[in-house]
């Protein structure tokens, strides 16, 4: 009670003082206070930027200390640990409708969408105390992206209309990026991995030692380390942690935690003394001092560790199918289990190959009635009950309801379970039954059969496919399933060799649909399914190769292009709705269930973690929930 009074009182003081940072007094972790006393670290006021980012704690002001134990299965996908510690200049809001400045103080997008201005925080420092300025961004652009050896070919993200972006330094804390065309991809910069270390900036003061432009001896240093060229070593030193086990222990960072130790099966991270976030009463964040990430060899052992309470927070490596198991052991493991939503439009979306090499099948697949029949034959409620414990949402493959241009009817388009109507549609297509009424026949007299090749990882694909096989056989289509290795499946999909492709439908939140023209799943001719490779080739080569698509597809393509160039909100919504109306009518993708839940476990004494949230790549997993304000009640 007393503590709460003090807190309220303190909040009052902060409010009175307003935002004048010079007057604000900051607190710090005992661990750092000790170092300051010993003279090994400057006082906290000097370490924080003039205007630190103020985070409002979710439930209460936290306490310092503790070790956060995290578990991962793969050094490349150490997502839990990575998203608990990393930051970008910006991040997306949880529902991906907004860009929130994180490391940066703010940004502006010019009205013509050609200029993107970034404002940095004055006095913000790297984890070794060196100031972070526009030069670190320019270093990334000029000396890494524009360096032929480090970046032999520049990705299309930075070349709208084929012309390179232009970076202009206004002063140490202001940067302008100019594009040749109005460019929606600027919104994509909001993603915290994209605007994070290695994505938009790099520590110039540290890396220039290894760069030939700044250090003529860079090649010799590389040779000493066992590399042939400077750029080989440079890449190794620069890695900000795509493979978290490859990280250079001395690399400065702006992230919450700094690497201290790497062994083959665990890593120790310690708090960044120069971290630039504070809570509402001026405590420097993070609350938790240490993060330990353990790498486990398999799912069962990881589950076991979670269930016996050795892990404090976990999500990425958990499976929905293990939910009952996790829930059952809550008490013993002393944790809470939450069910979050995933920002996935469809756990499995089927895309009939409309450019099939078999002309008979191609004609069938291109027939809109056929796709409608396939969709109507799927019992989505049953899939939901059997595969997702009834917690997902049965829906058609479309964008998420959080999008500003969303229409509810898209969700329901041909998504009801109506096998009779499906049969009617197929009858109308003149796909007759064979003599003993077991199978429909193609116009050329052969039995109508579809081979579903699929990659069996990432989500409950096998379970859903097995159910769909049953549904489609009921309407007279012979179905065979063939699980494949991921690379093999991708090769087949890319070559357009599948009868029907399937993938999970992600990138369906507002800024992701819009920010990635022609690469977001629903706006491409591939989408992991390769549903129209010949048309795609036709568009990509300006009609020189591939097959000419029908008029309506050409219009669809034009709408997508126009959409990426709109400048008014009204136009934006109009075109978006036109595009997704088309999807709902055409059923290029046939959805099953979407927004399936995702298990999240949090130790009972770990606080300020929301009970409900979106678990998604789009908003970058934990980052959207400000993990620096998580804390342990001591």
């Amino acid at each position: 009670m007393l503590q709460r009074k003090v807190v309220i009182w303190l909040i009052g003081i902060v409010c009175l003082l307003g935002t004048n940072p010079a007057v604000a007094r900051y607190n710090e972790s005992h661990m750092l206070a000790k170092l300051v006393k010993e003279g090994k670290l400057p006082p906290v006021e000097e370490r924080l930027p003039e205007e630190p980012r103020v985070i409002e704690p979710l439930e209460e002001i936290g306490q310092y200390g503790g070790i956060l134990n995290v578990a991962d299965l793969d050094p490349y996908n150490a997502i839990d640990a990575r998203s608990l510690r990393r930051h970008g200049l910006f991040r997306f809001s949880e529902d991906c409708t907004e860009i929130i400045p994180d490391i940066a103080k703010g940004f502006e997008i010019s009205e013509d969408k050609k200029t993107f201005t970034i404002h940095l925080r004055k006095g913000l420092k790297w984890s070794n105390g060196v100031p972070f300025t526009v030069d670190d961004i320019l270093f990334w652009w000029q000396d890494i992206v524009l360096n032929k050896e480090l970046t032999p070919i520049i990705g299309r993200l930075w070349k709208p209309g084929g012309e390179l972006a232009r970076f202009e330094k206004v002063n140490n804390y202001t940067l302008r990026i100019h594009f040749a065309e109005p460019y929606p991809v600027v919104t994509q910069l909001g993603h915290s991995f994209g605007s994070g270390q290695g994505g938009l900036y790099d520590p110039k003061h540290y890396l220039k030692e290894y760069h030939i432009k700044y250090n003529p001896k860079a090649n010799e240093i590389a040779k000493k380390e066992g590399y042939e060229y400077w750029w080989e070593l440079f890449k190794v030193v620069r890695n900000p942690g795509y493979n978290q086990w490859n990280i250079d222990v001395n690399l400065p960072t702006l992230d919450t935690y700094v690497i201290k130790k790497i062994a083959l099966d665990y890593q120790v991270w310690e708090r960044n003394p120069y971290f630039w976030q504070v809570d509402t009463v001026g405590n420097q964040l993070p609350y938790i001092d240490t993060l330990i990430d353990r790498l486990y060899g398999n799912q069962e052992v990881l589950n076991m560790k979670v269930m016996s309470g050795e892990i404090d927070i976990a999500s990425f490596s958990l499976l929905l199918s293990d939910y009952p198991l996790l829930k059952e052991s809550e008490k013993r493991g002393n944790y809470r289990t939450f069910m979050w939503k995933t920002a996935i439009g469809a756990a499995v979306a089927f895309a009939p190959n409309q450019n099939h090499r078999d002309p008979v099948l191609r004609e069938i697949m291109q027939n809109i009635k056929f796709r409608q029949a396939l969709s109507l034959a799927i019992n989505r409620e049953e899939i939901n009950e059997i595969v997702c414990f009834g917690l997902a949402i049965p829906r058609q493959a479309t964008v998420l309801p959080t999008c500003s241009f969303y229409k509810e009817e898209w969700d329901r388009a041909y998504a009801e379970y109506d096998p009779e109507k499906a049969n009617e549609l197929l009858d109308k297509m003149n796909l007759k039954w064979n003599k003993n009424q077991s199978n429909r026949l193609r116009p050329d007299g052969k039995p109508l059969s579809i081979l579903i090749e699929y990659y069996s990882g990432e989500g409950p694909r096998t379970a859903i496919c097995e159910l769909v096989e049953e549904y489609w056989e009921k309407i007279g289509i012979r179905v065979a399933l063939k699980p494949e290795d991921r690379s093999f499946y991708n090769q087949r999909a890319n070559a357009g060799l599948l009868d029907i492709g399937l993938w999970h439908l992600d990138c369906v939140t507002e800024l992701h649909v819009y920010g990635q023209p022609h690469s977001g799943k629903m706006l491409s001719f591939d989408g992991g399914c390769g549903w129209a490779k010949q048309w795609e080739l036709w568009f990509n080569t300006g009609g020189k190769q591939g097959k000419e698509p029908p008029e309506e597809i050409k219009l669809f393509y034009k709408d997508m292009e126009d959409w990426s160039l709109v400048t008014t909100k009204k136009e934006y919504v109009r075109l978006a709705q036109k595009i997704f109306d088309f999807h709902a009518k055409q059923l290029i993708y046939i959805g099953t269930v979407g927004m399936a839940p995702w298990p999240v476990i949090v130790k009972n004494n770990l606080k300020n973690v929301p009970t409900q949230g979106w678990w998604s790549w789009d908003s970058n997993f934990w980052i959207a929930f400000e993990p620096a304000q998580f804390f342990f009640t001591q």
Partner: protein
Amino acid sequence: MVIVLWAVSITAFVIIQLPPGDFLTSYIMKLEASGQIVDEAEIAALRKQYDLDSPIHLQYCKWMWKMLHGDFGKSFEWNRPVRDLIAERLPLTVTISIFTLIFTYLLAIPIGIYSAARQYSIGDYTFTVFGFIGLATPGFLFALILMFFFYRYFGISVGGLFSPQYQLADWSGAKFIDLLKHLPIPVLVIGMAGTAGLIRIMRGCLLDELRKQYVITARAKGVSERRLLFKYPVRVAINPIASTIGWLLPGIVSGQTIVAIVLDLPTVGPLLFRSLVNQDMYLAGSSIMILAFLTVIGTFISDILLVWLDPRIRYEKQAR
């Protein structure tokens, strides 16, 4: 021996190259799985830098040349020298294997002798039943059952070799004791099948020997049963065991990969498995080469051991 090793090196290299794609393909898939967009152009550049563009025989020559100079290459995935990676895992792997070996021999040989000497006794039947169960149960299944059992009834999470607080600590007496506490389960699981098999072999061989004439003659002349058993028959019966010691050597290093994966033991086995899945060429290749080398050495050792144990082999050679 050199020729065998050379043949193995080629086979190993070819097998690693066989599946479609290479390390980069799986690397890119992983990047894409975590949502990053990788351009075609970037892929081409990476491929060039990893030297995956040059023809296979050139890659092979480069690899062999380096290996002859004691350089096993660098793991793509961990970005560390293969030598360091294996060195980090080797001590614990060898520890587990040696404990397992001791466990197996201490249990299997006496039981085998007992079963043969007291054939069709209650003891023999009991051991036979357990032996067959042991042989028939796959190690990983047994491991899963034990894991569940220990979690359910003792609240211990099996997996790994150290408790969390010791995993990060430097070596100390307490850490060693912690290790000893974690050892029984992996040793039991890994040793189970071997023990069961060994009991059967020991029993069978010994039974064969016991029926031979020299035993009957000795018994007729009044040699005590114990002396009779250990003087010759046991020595002969141990031969097949000695000749398979050579296979144990690579086993010591690879350390029962499947069981190690299930129990998440920090041994070389899972590392090798991962490298094969990810097509981490040098790590996989070098691990396989080391294993092959140890097999060849092991076979050599068991040959010598046999000659030493069994005078007949020695004399045969001299007679020729």
